[in-house]
């Protein structure tokens, strides 16, 4: 564990990513303290430019853009984390079963995965939210439903390779049941791959959520980055900051998560690193 941390902290981009990410998380957690009250509240004249009375200026309705972005961070991170957790759980379970049992189970589960993969994932997410009515829970569900297939494929591949390793055969020959072998022996050995891919999935989940709320397919009563951009896009020429600032927030957060993911990858798989 200590060795792992040492390898991670030697990687400068990853440390920078982690610092930014922690900053975003801190802002999200402190949002109710920094900007109490609703971010939907009108505070002044519309279209005030940034660095005036309000740090990021105001939007077309005269709402404080800083409050919106800070509260929006909560939504983005929450949805990103929850949707990814569900996707990892579903994907890893399906992948593990397919890879471990092989044969018909594998064929069946992989065809199912392919069905999900052949539908363009963003359109699928739109359809799901549109059918299920836009609410935070449904957005999370939709994002999770479109992101698990790659995880299932990855875990299946890892399990398939591990299944024939001698240490797994040794477990079988000792008379262990399948659940024990899967959970206590193979899964811990695939954990590093799952963590790395999972961390990168958070970034994708945030992007999908932003896209959905940009299209107005998110909870209209919850502030989110995509929603601000969607609302502000009509005024893009006259008030560039309304779209740009939440856009930069998305960019920076996703980039930070990617850097952390890459850093984790290098730290967990030192053999793959270039010498």
């Amino acid at each position, binding site marked *: 564990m200590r060795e792992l941390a040492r390898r991670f902290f030697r990687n400068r981009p990853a440390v920078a990513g982690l610092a930014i990410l922690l900053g975003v998380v801190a802002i999200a957690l402190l949002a109710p303290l920094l900007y109490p009250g609703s971010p939907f509240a009108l505070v002044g004249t519309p279209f005030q430019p940034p660095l005036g009375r309000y740090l990021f200026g105001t939007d077309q309705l005269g709402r404080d853009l800083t409050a919106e972005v800070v509260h929006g961070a909560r939504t983005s991170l929450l949805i990103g984390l929850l949707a990814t957790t569900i996707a990892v759980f579903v994907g890893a379970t399906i992948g593990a079963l397919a890879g471990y049992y092989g044969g018909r189970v594998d064929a069946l589960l992989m065809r199912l995965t392919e069905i999900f993969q052949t539908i363009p994932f963003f359109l699928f997410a739109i359809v799901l939210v549109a059918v299920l009515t836009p609410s935070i829970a449904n957005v999370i569900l939709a994002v999770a439903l479109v992101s698990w297939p790659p995880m299932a494929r990855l875990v299946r591949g890892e399990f398939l390779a591990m299944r024939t*390793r*001698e*240490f797994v*055969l*040794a*477990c*079988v*020959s*000792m*008379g*262990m*049941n399948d659940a*024990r072998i899967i959970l206590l*022996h193979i899964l*811990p*050995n695939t954990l590093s791959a799952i963590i790395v891919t999972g961390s990168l999935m958070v970034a994708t989940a945030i992007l999908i959520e932003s896209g959905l709320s940009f299209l107005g397919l998110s909870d209209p009563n919850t502030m989110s980055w995509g929603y601000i951009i969607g609302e502000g896009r009509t005024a893009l020429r006259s008030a560039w900051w309304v779209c740009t600032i939440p856009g930069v927030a998305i960019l920076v957060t996703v980039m930070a998560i990617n850097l952390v993911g890459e850093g984790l990858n290098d730290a967990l798989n030192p053999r793959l690193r270039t*010498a």
Partner: protein
Amino acid sequence: MSGAETVLTIERLTVDLPPWADRPHAVEDVTLELRHDEILCVVGESGSGKSVMARSILGLFPSRYVRPSGGRILYGGEDLLAATPEQLRALRGSRIAMIFQEPMTALNPVLTIGRQIEEAIEVHQPVAREERRRRVLEMLSAVHLPEAERIYKAYPHQISGGQRQRAMIAMALTLEPDVLIADEPTTALDVTTQAQILGLVREIQATRRMAVLFITHDFGVVAEIADRIAVMQQGRLVEHGPAEEILAAPREPYTRALLAAVPDLLPAPPRKAFAQAPVAMRVSGLEKTYRSGGLFFGESARVVHAAKGVAFEIRRGETLGIVGESGSGKSTVARCVARLVEPDVGEIRVGDTDFGRLSHRALREARRRVQMVFQDPYGSLDPRRTVGKLIAEGPIVHGTTPATAWQHALELLELVGLDRRAAARYPHEFSGGQRQRIGLARALALDPEVLIADEPVSALDVSVQAQVLRLLSDIRERLGLTVLFITHDLRVAAQVCDSIAVMRQGEIVEYGLTAEVFAAPRHPYTRELFAAVPGRAQSERRAAAATASP
């Protein structure tokens, strides 16, 4: 060999290892000369620096952290360590050629054999296409490849391992080099193929009067082909001299230890007769067939009979060896018997139980009666569990309390010659030999009626191999274990097995008491196997000397 002229001189060569390695130098202060018309064998265990030494001649270093820091390598009056990349490139392949251990990975899988050999000519000499082709075909016949035309057009995966190694040799020889460096060229091959390739290297060397630098870890191979021998240990040259002298009277203790570690081909004296003991395991009519391909393109399915009517029995306390080359089906048999692979048909009885027909649930319960030690010391232990947990887990699964199982695991660690403190450490902290001991302890933890050992020492260095074999015999004696021992190595089989079964292409071709099979092999294939064991003459001389002066 005559006191011929020196072709290549290595002078006080030192090659550095990166700072985080376990020793500062891969090669330390090695001085050697390679003479015209001779085979110099460099022998050493893994990590002795023999490969790095050989490869530094061509400037092929495994990473940018491994660099020469002292000495010279003189060839034709030039220091190769100081040569420019262009100069080295001109020498590589044309004057100094190299063949590698694994011909499958050393050949490009998407080019035909003929094309690859032609390319070797192309980069060094401007020769017309027809002429190139003629020379390649000539070389292919020179290395005794049948149907040179067919091989010329074949891709690497379409020919056998031995043929690939012959093609590699043909490639190395097309430009008629002065020096051939052979880095463990027969290690990946079966004994019978190895014997042929060694014969070929000997023949080619003699007809072309080349200098051959032959790297190997196997003293048997050395005894077959060396004119001179250099022994390396930990990057240093321990001893070198004419082959007869070193083999007959090694001066250095390390050389003596290495030679002594090579198991005798003479079977150990029979322990006792097991004919009266109850049968611990009986296998009969075991069949397993693998099918592959044939789904599309109208080609017929490739059918491999991994086991065909295999039958044997092991009496309590006895050790039965299954000997065979790769692809003979010996591992499949082991896995079928342990029910890690389901046989197509056949009966497997363990004691009174019909082990082969147990239901899924009953089998899980009964598995403890048949335990296995695996070949790969690196892949057979879960890297994320401590050694103690690995050993204790089996008994815990079968209902032993964790405290008792842990206590037993500590005792087993001592039994296999490891410290009790090893229990808290992870597998990667141990060497290959130690890991095999851990694997053995894990198998013994369930107190099995039959222990299956699938090539348990073939991935280990000879000296470590000898230790593990000694441990295995010792424990077998103490616990009265019944063992099914799978091996490709007749020497190892001679030392540990009471009876042996020789397998070829899924069938047992010869089956009998070890002493009888070794004294008078009946099946032609068994005789062929015996004839192919490298260093056989040397072993026999040694055995004769041992009986003459007890």
